[in-house]
C-alpha cells in the first residue's frame, strides 16, 4: 500500500531498467507503431509525459514515531494532496480523496487514524469499509505492519487492526469487538452483523472517530443507495453512544465527487482531488479490430485480437495484465495464451487466470506471483480492478470497455506504478459504447462524464432500511411529529411517515408515547439485501432432487421460467416443468434439447405522474428535410411543440404472451407455445421522449417502418447510456410506442428497472442531449450499410431502412436549440389517474417528486 511511493520504489524501477536493458514498454510501443498490421488497427495513440510529484512536509501535528514508521517504509515526505487530506482529517473535517489509482490514497486515511490513536492513547476507534472481503484482508496486513512499526518504538501501547467478515471465527469475534482499534469490514457485515448487535460493539462505537469508506465510486445504484442508508444507521448508533465520527473516503475520479459524497454521507465533505503523485510516461492505445464484413458491420472478435496482439505485448522481461468482462472469457483467453506461451518466450505456468470463484489460496498465490514477478501474464475479470496489492505491472489490455470511466482508470492504474513507462491498450468490441470510444478516445481522457445514480430516499429501500434501524434503536418523534431529533434520519423526507406506515400497515413497529418500537419476531437485516430485490428472485430447482440450478430476478422470470422454457447452464439444457409463481420457484428437468426458447412479452407503461419536463417548439427548429407527404395533404404549420422530454412515475406491466422454439445454429422456428403467467408489475420512475405528431410525420416516425426505427433508437440510447450515467444497459427497461396512450404520439420510455427507481431517470433527463449526440455519432461513424450490432442493430431486426430512419431522428433530435424546462401540466394529460406535480405542490409551485433529493 505504502511501499512503492518513495525513493525505494524508484530505486527498484531503476534496477529494473538496467537489468532488462532496453525498456520493454518502449520496445513494444515502437513495434506497435512500426508494423503495418498494428498500425491499421490502432486508431489512436495518447501519451502522457512523465510527471514529477509535488511533495510537502509532514504536518506539524504528526507524531514523530508515526513519521518514523513512514520513513522506515520508504516515505520521506508526503505528496501535496496527502498532506492536505491528512490535515483536513485531523482538523475534524469529512474528507473525500478523489485522485487516480496509485496516488497513495491509503496514507490519507491511515495516518489520521493512527495519529488519533497515539493522541488518545488508544482510546480512538475507526471503522473501515471496503467493497470486497479480499480488499479488507489485504489492507489489514498493511495496517498491521504499520502498527508493528509503531509498537517497536518505545512505550507505545499495542494497537490492533482486525478484519471482521463472514470468515472471522466466533472465538476471535469477542476480542475483536472489545479490543479492535481498527475494524476492517464490508457493508454487508456492517448491515447484518455489527449494527443489529451494536450493544456488543459498544467499545467500538463509544470511541468511534473515523469511518473510512473506500472506493465510493462503486457505491451507486441500488447498492449505493442501500449503503447510504446503512451509513445513516451507523451514524445514528454512534450518536447513541455519544460518538460523532467523521467520514474519510476515497474514490476514483468521478464526475462531481463532492455531490456524490454529499448524497452518500448526508453532509458536506472537503474534496481533495489534485493528484500530486509522480508518474512515469504512459502510452494509451485504442485498438479497433478490423472490419471483416463492412456491409454487415462485422468486426473481428476482440478476444481473438487479444490473442494475436499478445505475441507482441507479452514477454519474459515484463508483466502484462488482460482484463475481460466475463469469467468465461477469462478462461478462454487463458487457455489460448497458455497454448501460445512458447511463441512469447514464456512457460505456461507463467500465465495465470484470475477471477472470482477461485479458491482463496490460489488467489493469494497468484497475487504473490505477480508481486515477486514470477507471474508474467495474468488474465482477470474485474476481480483485480480494486486495490488489491499486486505491485505494478507494465502493460494492461482492456478487452472491451469496462462500462465506466472509473473502471477504465482503475484498470489502467494497474500499470506504471513504479514510475517507469507503461502501456494501456483498449480493445474495442462490436458494441455501440466501444465503437463510440474508438471514434472518440478523447472521452476517456477528458473530465469524467458519467453521473452516479444514488437515491438513498427511494421509498422501497428507505422503508426496508428504516425497519433495520428501528430494530437497532427505537425512533422518537419530536413535538411536531417529525423525526427532527434523529441524528441521521432527521432530515430525511418522509421518514416519519414511513415509520407510521410500518407501524400501522405492516405491523413491524408499534408507536407508543411518540416512540416507534420494533415489535416483531424477526431479524430484519437478514431479510434485507443491499443489492435489492433478492427476496423476489426466482430459484430454479431440479425437479425431484430440489437441487438449485440457478436464480433469476423477478422480471426476467417471465421469459426464462415459464413452463416449457429451455434453461441453459454451462451447455446443459433443462426444461422448466412447473413454475410455482407464488413461492418463486421453478422446477426443471434435464433434457436433450436441440432448440432454445424465446419468449415474447408485451410491456405496457402507464404514466402515473409527471414531474419534470423540457420542450422546444417547431418554430425553434424546423425539420430540415421533411419526408414527402401523402398525395394532396397540406404541409404542416411550423407551430406548436416539436419534441419534449419528461421524467415521472410510471407503472410498468409486463405480460409474457407466447414463446417460440428456435433450433440451435440454424435458428429455424420449430414450434411455439402459449405462456400463462400473471403479469409482472413494476412501479418506478422513467425518462420519456416524445415527438409531436407533426414532427413525427415529417421525420417518418409515424409509419410502421418508422416505428421500427423509433424502437431501434431506444435500444441504441439504452446501450449508450452507460457513457453518461453510471449503470448497465440491463438496469434500464425500454418501451416505445408510435402512438402512446398517454401522450397520443410517438413516445420512448426508458425506465429504471428497480422498484421505486434509484434516480436513473433523473440522470437521463440531465444527460439526454449528450446521449443523443453520442448516439448520432455512433450511427454516423459506423461502417455498416444498413445497420449492425455496433450501431442500430442488425438489418434483420431494424429493416432495410432502419439505419436511415434512426439517423434522420437523431439528426433532428440532437441538433438545434436546447430544450427549455417547462411545467409538466402544460401538456394535456388525458387520463384521470394522472396527478401532475402541480396538483401536489403548494400554491401552484412545481415540486419535484418526493422520491428525489433536491
Amino acid at each position, binding site marked *: 500500500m505504502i511501499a512503492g511511493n518513495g525513493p525505494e520504489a524508484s530505486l527498484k524501477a531503476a534496477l529494473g531498467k538496467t537489468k532488462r536493458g532496453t525498456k520493454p514498454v518502449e520496445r513494444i510501443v515502437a513495434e506497435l507503431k512500426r508494423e503495418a498490421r498494428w498500425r491499421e488497427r490502432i486508431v489512436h495513440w495518447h501519451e502522457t509525459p512523465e510527471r514529477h510529484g509535488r511533495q510537502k512536509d509532514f504536518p506539524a501535528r504528526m507524531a514523530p514515531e508515526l513519521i518514523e514508521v513512514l520513513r522506515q517504509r520508504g516515505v520521506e515526505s508526503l505528496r501535496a494532496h496527502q498532506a492536505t487530506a491528512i490535515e483536513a482529517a485531523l482538523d475534524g473535517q469529512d474528507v473525500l480523496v478523489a485522485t487516480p489509482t496509485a496516488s497513495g490514497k491509503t496514507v490519507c486515511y491511515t495516518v489520521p487514524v493512527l495519529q488519533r490513536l497515539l493522541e488518545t492513547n488508544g482510546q480512538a476507534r475507526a471503522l473501515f469499509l471496503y467493497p470486497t472481503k479480499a480488499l479488507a484482508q489485504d489492507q489489514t496486513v498493511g495496517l498491521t505492519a504499520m502498527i508493528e512499526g509503531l509498537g517497536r518504538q518505545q512505550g507505545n501501547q499495542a494497537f490492533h487492526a482486525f478484519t471482521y467478515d463472514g470468515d472471522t471465527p466466533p472465538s476471535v469475534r469477542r476480542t475483536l469487538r472489545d479490543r479492535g482499534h481498527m475494524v476492517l469490514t464490508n457493508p454487508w457485515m456492517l448491515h447484518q452483523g455489527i449494527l443489529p*448487535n451494536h450493544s456488543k460493539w459498544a467499545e467500538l462505537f463509544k470511541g468511534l472517530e473515523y469511518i473510512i469508506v473506500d472506493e465510493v465510486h462503486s457505491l451507486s445504484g441500488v447498492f449505493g443507495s442501500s449503503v447510504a442508508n446503512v451509513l445513516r444507521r451507523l451514524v445514528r448508533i454512534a450518536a447513541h453512544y455519544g460518538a460523532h465520527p467523521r467520514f474519510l473516503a476515497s474514490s476514483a475520479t468521478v464526475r462531481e465527487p463532492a455531490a456524490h459524497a454529499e448524497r452518500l454521507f448526508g453532509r458536506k465533505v472537503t474534496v481533495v482531488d489534485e493528484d500530486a503523485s509522480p508518474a512515469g510516461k504512459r502510452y494509451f492505445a485504442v485498438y479497433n479490430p478490423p472490419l471483416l464484413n463492412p456491409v454487415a458491420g462485422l468486426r473481428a472478435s476482440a478476444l481473438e485480437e487479444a490473442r494475436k496482439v499478445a505475441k507482441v505485448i507479452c514477454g519474459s522481461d515484463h508483466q502484462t495484465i488482460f482484463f475481460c468482462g466475463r469469467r468465461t472469457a477469462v478462461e478462454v483467453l487463458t487457455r489460448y495464451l497458455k497454448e501460445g506461451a512458447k511463441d512469447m518466450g514464456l512457460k505456461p505456468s507463467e500465465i495465470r487466470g484470475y477471477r*472470482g470463484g477461485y479458491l482463496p489460496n490460489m488467489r493469494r498465490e497468484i497475487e504473490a506471483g505477480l508481486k515477486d514477478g514470477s507471474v508474467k501474464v495474468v488474465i482477470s475479470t474485474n476481480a483485480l480492478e480494486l486495490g488489491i496489492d499486486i505491485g505494478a505491472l507494465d502493460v494492461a489490455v482492456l478487452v472491451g470497455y469496462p462500462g465506466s470511466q472509473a473502471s477504465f482508470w482503475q484498470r489502467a492504474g494497474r500499470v506504471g506504478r513504479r514510475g517507469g513507462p507503461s502501456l494501456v491498450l483498449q480493445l474495442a468490441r462490436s458494441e455501440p459504447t466501444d465503437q463510440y470510444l474508438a471514434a472518440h478516445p478523447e472521452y476517456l481522457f477528458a473530465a469524467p462524464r458519467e453521473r452516479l445514480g444514488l437515491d438513498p430516499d427511494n421509498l422501497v429501500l428507505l422503508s426496508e432500511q428504516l425497519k433495520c434501524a428501528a430494530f437497532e434503536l427505537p425512533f422518537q418523534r419530536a413535538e411536531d411529529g417529525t423525526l427532527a431529533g434523529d441524528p441521521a434520519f432527521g432530515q430525511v423526507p418522509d421518514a416519519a*411517515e414511513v415509520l407510521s406506515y410500518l407501524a400501522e400497515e*405492516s405491523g413491524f413497529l408499534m408507536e407508543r408515547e411518540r416512540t416507534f*418500537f420494533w415489535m416483531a419476531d424477526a*431479524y430484519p437485516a*437478514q431479510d434485507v439485501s443491499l443489492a435489492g430485490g433478492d427476496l423476489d428472485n426466482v430459484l430454479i430447482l431440479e425437479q425431484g432432487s430440489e437441487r438449485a440450478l*440457478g436464480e433469476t430476478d423477478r422480471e426476467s422470470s417471465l421469459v426464462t421460467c415459464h413452463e416449457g422454457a429451455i434453461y441453459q447452464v454451462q451447455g446443459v439444457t433443462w426444461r422448466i416443468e412447473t413454475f410455482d409463481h407464488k413461492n418463486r420457484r421453478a422446477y426443471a428437468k434435464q433434457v436433450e434439447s436441440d432448440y432454445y426458447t424465446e419468449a415474447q412479452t408485451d410491456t405496457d407503461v402507464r404514466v402515473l405522474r409527471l414531474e419534470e419536463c423540457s420542450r422546444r417548439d417547431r418554430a425553434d427548429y424546423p425539420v430540415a428535410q421533411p419526408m414527402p407527404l401523402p398525395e394532396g395533404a397540406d404541409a404542416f404549420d411550423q407551430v406548436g411543440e416539436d419534441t419534449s422530454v419528461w421524467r415521472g412515475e410510471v407503472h410498468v406491466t409486463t405480460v409474457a404472451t407466447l414463446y417460440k422454439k428456435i433450433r440451435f445454429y440454424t435458428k429455424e422456428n420449430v414450434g411455439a407455445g402459449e405462456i400463462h403467467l400473471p403479469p409482472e408489475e413494476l*412501479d418506478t420512475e422513467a425518462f420519456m421522449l416524445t415527438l409531436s405528431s407533426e414532427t413525427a410525420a415529417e421525420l417518418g416516425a409515424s409509419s410502421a417502418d418508422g416505428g421500427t426505427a423509433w424502437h431501434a433508437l431506444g435500444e441504441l440510447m439504452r446501450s449508450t447510456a452507460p457513457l453518461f450515467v453510471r449503470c448497465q444497459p440491463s438496469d434500464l427497461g425500454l418501451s416505445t410506442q408510435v402512438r402512446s396512450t398517454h401522450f397520443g404520439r410517438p413516445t420512448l420510455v426508458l425506465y429504471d428497472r428497480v422498484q421505486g427507481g434509484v434516480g436513473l431517470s433523473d440522470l437521463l433527463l440531465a444527460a439526454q442531449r449528450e446521449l443523443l449526440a453520442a448516439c448520432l455519432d455512433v450511427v454516423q461513424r459506423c461502417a455498416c450499410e444498413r445497420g449492425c450490432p455496433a450501431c442500430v442493430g442488425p438489418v434483420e431486426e431494424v429493416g432495410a431502412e432502419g439505419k436511415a430512419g434512426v439517423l434522420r431522428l437523431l439528426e433532428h433530435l440532437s441538433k438545434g436549440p436546447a430544450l427549455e424546462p417547462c411545467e409538466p401540466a402544460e401538456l394535456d394529460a388525458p387520463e384521470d389517474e394522472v396527478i401532475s406535480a402541480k396538483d401536489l405542490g403548494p400554491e401552484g409551485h412545481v415540486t419535484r417528486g418526493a422520491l428525489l433529493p433536491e
Partner: protein
Amino acid sequence: MAGRQKNLAGRLKRLRREGTGAGPAGARVIGSEPIETAGVEPTSANTQSSARKFALGRLRERLQGRGQAYGESSSGPRTQPTCPTQLGPPKDLVSWEATHGTCQGREALLSGTDMHGDWRLQEAHLADPQALAIMAQDPRLLAASSGDALFLDTETTGLAGGTGTWVFMVGLGRFRPDGTFELWQGFLPGPEAEKPFLHEVARRIGEAGTLVSFFGKSYDQHRLLDRFRLHGLPSPFENRRHLDLYHPLKRLCGGQGPGPYGDHKLQTLERHLCGHQRVDDLPGSAAPEAWFDFLRGDPHRLEGVFHHNFLDVLSLVTLYGYLGQALTGRRGDGRPLSGSELLRTLALVKSSCKGRDFSGALRLRGAKDFPEGPLEQVLLLDRLRGECLLRTGATAEGEELLESVHLRAQGAEEPGERVKRSALESAQLLARSAAGRQELVRAAEAHQWAGTWLSRWPGLVSHQHAQERMGIRLDRSLLPRPAPGA
C-alpha cells in the same frame, strides 16, 4: 399534509408490493424461511447469512423443545395442546415503585412439599454440590447450595438475538429461609417501561449465589446482556456461579448421539426424569405473538405465557434436584433415580476424568456392579477405570483391567463400533504403560492387539497417530542398532 400522508401510504403499499396477494414482501419477511440462494456467487453476506440461518434453525429446534410438549418418543395419537385463554389483563399482576419507575410482575409462594411431576420441590435441598460440580465440569459449583440458588427462565420475542429482540418476562425462583419457594415473574408491560424492569431483574440476579438455567449460558444470559448493555447496566452475570443444566443433563442421559431421551429438550427431560407431563401448555414459540397481541390490546394468550414460564422454572428446580443426586443414584426417600444408572456412572467417570480427578472417578462404581449392562457401556467404563488406575499408580491392577477389556471384546460376537473403540484404546493404553516400565515384549504384544483392532475399526486420526508413535518407539528399542559406520 394528511392527504399527502395518505398518498404516501398508498405509494408505499404499492411499491412494497404489500397486500396485492402476489408475493407480498412484508408477509414473507415475517413468516416463511427465506430462500437459500444457492448457485449464486457467494458474497460474504450470503455465506454469513446462510450460516446464520443454519445456526438459527438449530437453536430454534432446541429451544422450541421447551414449548412443544409431547415429544416424538411418545407413541399414540398426539393431542393438540390447548392453552388457557383469558379476557382482560393478566390476573394478580402487582405493580410497585422501584428506583427507576414502576415495575410489574407476579409473585407466587409455594410450599416446599408441593409436587412438580413426582418430585417435591424441597428435594432440591438434597442436591450434592459435588455431583453438580462434576457433571457441569465446573469446580466453582462445589460452593453451590439450593438456598442461594436462583432459578432463571426468560421469555423473549425471538431467537435471533440482536438489539431488537425484547426480553418481556423473566421468571426467577428461589427458596426462602423458611423453606417456602418464591416464584417471581417480572413482566414488561410495554417497551417504554423497560428501564425499571431491567433494573429490578438485574438487582435480583445480583443477589443470587448460583444461577440455575436451562441453556441459559448460551441463550437467556445473552439476551438479557444485550438489554442491560442497551440501558447501560453493568452485567450482573460477571463472576457469578451459573449452572446451565442443559449440558450436564445431556451428558447424564447418554451424551452425544441419540440418547434414550432423544432431543435433550427441557420438556422431554422433565417428563422422563421427573415425571412431569404438561397439559394445556402454550408452545414457547407462540410467546412472542402473545406478547405483541397483549401490547395491541388483546391479552388473550398472555396467561398462557405466564403459566408456561412458571412451569419452566419449577422444572429447573426438580432437574436441579435430579442432577444433585447423580452420585448417590437415590432420591431422599431411597427410591432409585429414573433412567439408567450405568449411563449415569459412565457420565460421572468421564466428567471426573475430564476434571483430572482420577481417584475420585475410582470411588465411583465399576462395571462389576452392572453385570447385566450392555457390553459397550460396560467395556467403556472399565477402559476408563483402567486408565484411572494407571494414572493413580495402580499399574498392575490397571493393566489387568485393560487387558480384560481387550479379551472380552475379542470374545464378543459382532462387536459394535464402540466396543472396538474401547478395546483399541485399552490395548494402546496397555502398550504405553508396559513400554514405560520397559516391559517391551508385553508392550509389543499389546501394540499388536491394538493393530488388530485398528484393522477392524479405522479409528480416529488421534488413534492412528498414537499407533504410529508406539510402533516407532518399539522399533527403536527392540531392533538391534546398526553398527556404527555400516
